[in-house]
């Protein structure tokens, strides 16, 4: 927090006029939005509106055709010289958890801090204890992913990402594969992170949750950030498209 104020005011994530096509399919058609430090941004919209693609572009899991993306001071568009520096700053949680099935929960969490940050084993293990305690799964530390429920696996995936101490975390429909009860336990973890001041961008279908914790809503429609604003836009939308979407979701 002792960095100069201009660095603090700068958005953590910034998309400007981003275009992306998969072959003939135009997925992103000029997306622009900013994510400020310590804020939670929820990206909503119907399927096919480009939500997940926009999120994946932020971590350069997809390359973009044109436009600009800046993440934690890294230029993500065009040629990128230090992909690793970007990945060290950005955490990503997937819908399908993607835990490493051949490793215990502890090793899932310690792998990246040890391999990518060169932490010693004891340091990484200490870190693993902290993050697993935070998601309430310290007792599963020696288990394997297949022994855990979907909700528990997703909480481990969040812990695994947290252990890298990212500056921003991206969540890609992380509760879509879970039943309501398991969804609840994952959302509580995310809420706890939000309360701790983590900068987060989440693609979600949980409209109630988005309204409760999001500082900013990005409603995507036809490959654009159609309407952007505080959570209040969900109750009083400016555009017909968002009004229709909200009506269909609640």
């Amino acid at each position, binding site marked *: 927090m002792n960095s100069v104020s201009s660095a603090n005011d700068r958005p953590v994530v910034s998309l400007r006029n981003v275009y992306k096509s998969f072959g003939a399919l135009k997925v992103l058609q000029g997306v622009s939005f900013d994510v400020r430090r310590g804020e939670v941004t929820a990206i909503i919209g119907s399927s096919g509106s480009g939500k997940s693609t926009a999120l994946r572009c932020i971590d350069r899991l997809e390359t973009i055709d044109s436009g600009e993306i800046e993440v934690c001071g890294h230029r993500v568009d065009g040629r990128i010289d230090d992909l690793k520096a970007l990945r060290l700053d950005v955490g990503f949680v997937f819908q399908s958890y993607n835990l490493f*099935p051949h490793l215990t929960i502890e090793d899932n969490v310690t*792998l990246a801090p040890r391999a990518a940050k060169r932490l010693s084993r004891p340091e990484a293990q200490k870190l693993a204890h902290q993050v697993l305690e935070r998601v309430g799964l310290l007792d599963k530390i020696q288990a394997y992913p297949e022994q855990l429920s979907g909700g528990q696996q997703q909480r481990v995936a969040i812990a695994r990402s947290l252990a890298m101490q990212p500056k921003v975390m991206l969540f890609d429909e992380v509760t879509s594969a879970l039943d309501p009860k398991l969804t609840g336990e994952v959302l509580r973890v995310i809420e706890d992170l939000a309360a701790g001041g983590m900068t987060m961008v989440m693609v979600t279908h949980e409209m109630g949750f988005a309204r409760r914790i999001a500082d900013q809503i990005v409603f995507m429609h036809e490959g654009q950030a159609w309407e952007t604003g505080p959570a209040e836009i969900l109750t009083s939308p400016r555009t017909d498209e968002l009004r229709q979407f909200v009506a269909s979701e609640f």
Partner: protein
Amino acid sequence: MGSSLNANHLVYLLHGAVWTIGLSLIAFIGGGAVGFLVALSRISPLRALRLASGAYVQVIQGTPLLVLMFLLYFGLPTIGIKISPLLAAGVSLTIYVAAYIGEIWRGCIESVPKQQWEAAETLALTRTQRMFKVVLPQAIQIATPPTVGYMVQVIKATSLASVVGFVELARSGQIINNSIFEPFIVYLIIAVLYFLMCYPLSRLSRRLERRAGARGQEEFSFSS
């Protein structure tokens, strides 16, 4: 001359069988090492490596092992490189096995879900770390049953080394038969010995496959 099968002949055959095992190990270790490089090259981001390894696989898979052995053992001396039967057999088996096992392993590496690569990527692991710490450990589990199964093929393929005069099981049988003229009994014994070497591996492969199948089933029912 004209004597019947006796204990000395059996000892001689067993001695040949030991060399069959030895040659199989050479083929498997050599072919495995080169095959691993072939597998990695086939999925390399470098186009030149992909093309070169792809060509290697195509050429070797389209060439009989017998011709490969002739080429090395009889061909090389004509350009001034003399080579022992063991070396000729070992090298040609290595070249041959690498082309097949490399393809088996490439398939196993590629069958690890793409999301595993992605997850490792978002955790800032380098490509090499992603390969060795995340993908290969999972690929090895997938690769074990077909690899053990392929070892059976390798054991049988070593019998071709007899054509360059290397005395393994098949060749030792030929030698004995040349002196006692009992082809039926001699080759029957040889067949039994090959079977005894191959059968445990076939069984093991099938058991590993069943276990892997059961594991896959579990994961499937869990995620659905």
